[in-house]
């Protein structure tokens, strides 16, 4: 183990260097650019054996990743925001072809208006594409999640692509203390990827991505659902094994001071760090508050989350993206829906926050907790969907 100073982008690039994938295909986009810039230096310096394919768009990047994965390679890439949007068509194809591609996604607001700063509209928009979504709170977790993602994606029961998200600029460009494993430890942890199929295996010719009509498409989609369901156990097992190796175990979420909490909030990404500080401060004032830091958004850990909410008096969801015309943001919709039919009549409020990189401070999150405390006292949620820190 070594302790180094790394930005989030550096941390993912470092994990990629240690994984040493067969193929990487990528296109630069802010704030992911430095991640791939760093990795391309490793390629140029001959430190990795990766074939780096420089393409003319993200659509081509994901297409090249799918082709390389179909050939049986271990494949990685990274993107942000509109780059992910341009991959859209291919995201679904990667998942349905069961290509275990690992992608760093540096969260950035989707245009428009044009904006380069953090929110989760990019990855949340892709939540139905069939990818596993792992959120990271800081550079350390961006590193840890990237290594685990390789194992989760390539598990023979799963074989699904994984995106590891890190908040644009807030994590991607902030230098932090990061503990990294030795190269040989990473090599042992991720192991060799032995793909069941390879398009280059001329002695066992196969067809990938064929036309699939009304008579088989539905069955293949059902089989894909099963891969996502199987991922639940694999994510936990890999998180435990990683914990044995590093002392940092991972689960679907971190339940922080939830044991006797009456008021709690859920947050994803870097805001969870700020929220943890708020919880400590409010606890010091005698308030029974807690935090759920959600790490795995797909597959969504509904049963485990509902169990955590049973003893609460009110709950706040922090959504760093909006779902226009829907009942609340993506995280709110999931959690409120998960509670239905569980004998849980818990007041839940949604805070849409931080869009386009709007700073979300300690005081902002403290306000979330104090307003949720009022909801607990009255038992009423006068406004289900609130917009945190937006000017009237």
């Amino acid at each position: 183990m070594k302790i180094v100073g790394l930005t989030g982008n550096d941390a993912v690039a470092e994990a990629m260097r240690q994984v040493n994938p067969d193929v990487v295909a990528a296109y630069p986009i802010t704030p992911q650019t430095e991640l791939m810039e760093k990795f391309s230096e490793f390629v140029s310096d001959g430190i990795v054996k990766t074939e780096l394919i420089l393409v003319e768009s993200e659509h081509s990047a994901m297409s090249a990743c799918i082709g390389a994965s179909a050939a049986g390679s271990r494949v990685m890439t990274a993107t942000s925001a509109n780059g992910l949007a341009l991959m859209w068509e291919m995201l679904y194809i990667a998942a349905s072809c069961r290509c275990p591609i690992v992608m760093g996604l540096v969260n950035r607001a989707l245009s428009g208006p044009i904006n380069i700063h953090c929110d989760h509209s990019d990855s949340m928009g892709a939540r139905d594409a069939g990818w596993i979504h792992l959120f990271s709170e800081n550079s350390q977790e961006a590193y840890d999640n990237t290594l685990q993602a390789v194992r989760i994606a390539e598990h023979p029961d799963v074989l699904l692509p994984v995106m590891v998200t890190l908040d644009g600029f807030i994590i991607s460009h902030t230098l932090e203390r990061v503990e990294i494993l030795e190269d040989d430890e990473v090599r042992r942890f991720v192991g060799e990827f032995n793909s069941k199929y390879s398009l280059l295996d001329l002695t066992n010719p196969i067809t990938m991505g064929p036309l699939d009509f009304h008579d088989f498409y539905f069955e293949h989609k059902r089989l894909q659902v099963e891969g996502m369901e199987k991922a639940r156990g694999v994510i936990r097992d890999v998180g435990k094994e990683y914990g044995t190796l590093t002392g940092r175990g991972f689960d679907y979420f971190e339940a922080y001071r939830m044991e006797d909490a009456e008021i709690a909030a859920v947050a994803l990404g870097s805001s969870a760090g700020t929220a943890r500080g708020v919880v400590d401060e409010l606890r010091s004032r005698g308030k029974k508050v807690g935090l759920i830091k959600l790490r795995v958004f797909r597959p969504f850990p509904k049963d485990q989350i509902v169990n955590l909410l049973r003893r609460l008096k009110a709950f706040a969801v922090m959504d760093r993206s909006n779902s226009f015309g829907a009942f609340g943001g993506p995280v709110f919709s999931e959690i409120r829906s998960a509670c239905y039919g569980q004998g849980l009549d818990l007041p839940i409020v949604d805070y849409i926050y931080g869009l386009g990189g709007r700073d979300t401070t300690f005081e902002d999150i403290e306000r979330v907790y104090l307003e949720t405390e009022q909801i607990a006292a009255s038992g009423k949620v006068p406004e289900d969907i609130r917009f945190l820190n937006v000017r009237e």
Partner: protein
Amino acid sequence: MSERLPGWKELAMGGVIEEAGNAERYETGSWRVQRPILDKNKCTSCLLCWIFCPDSSILLENGKVTGIDLEHCKGCGICARECPLKDKAIVMRLESECEQVK
């Protein structure tokens, strides 16, 4: 189709086709509007139709054209168009005017 199709648990992940060349068993000629009719007496087996057919539906035996695979022929009419004989050896006829294949 009376044959039982496999359930999702029996399928290969990702829609992979593990057996090469099994499209031969997948009937795709059912939506043909026009059917090529071959006159073996006129045909010289020049094989231009065989070269041009986009669906490998011209049947050959020992280098001679013996018929048309109507389970896969889509009725595009390229074979009839490319037949070099002035008095064509393949002509297209509306399916509704033809006898049923089966």
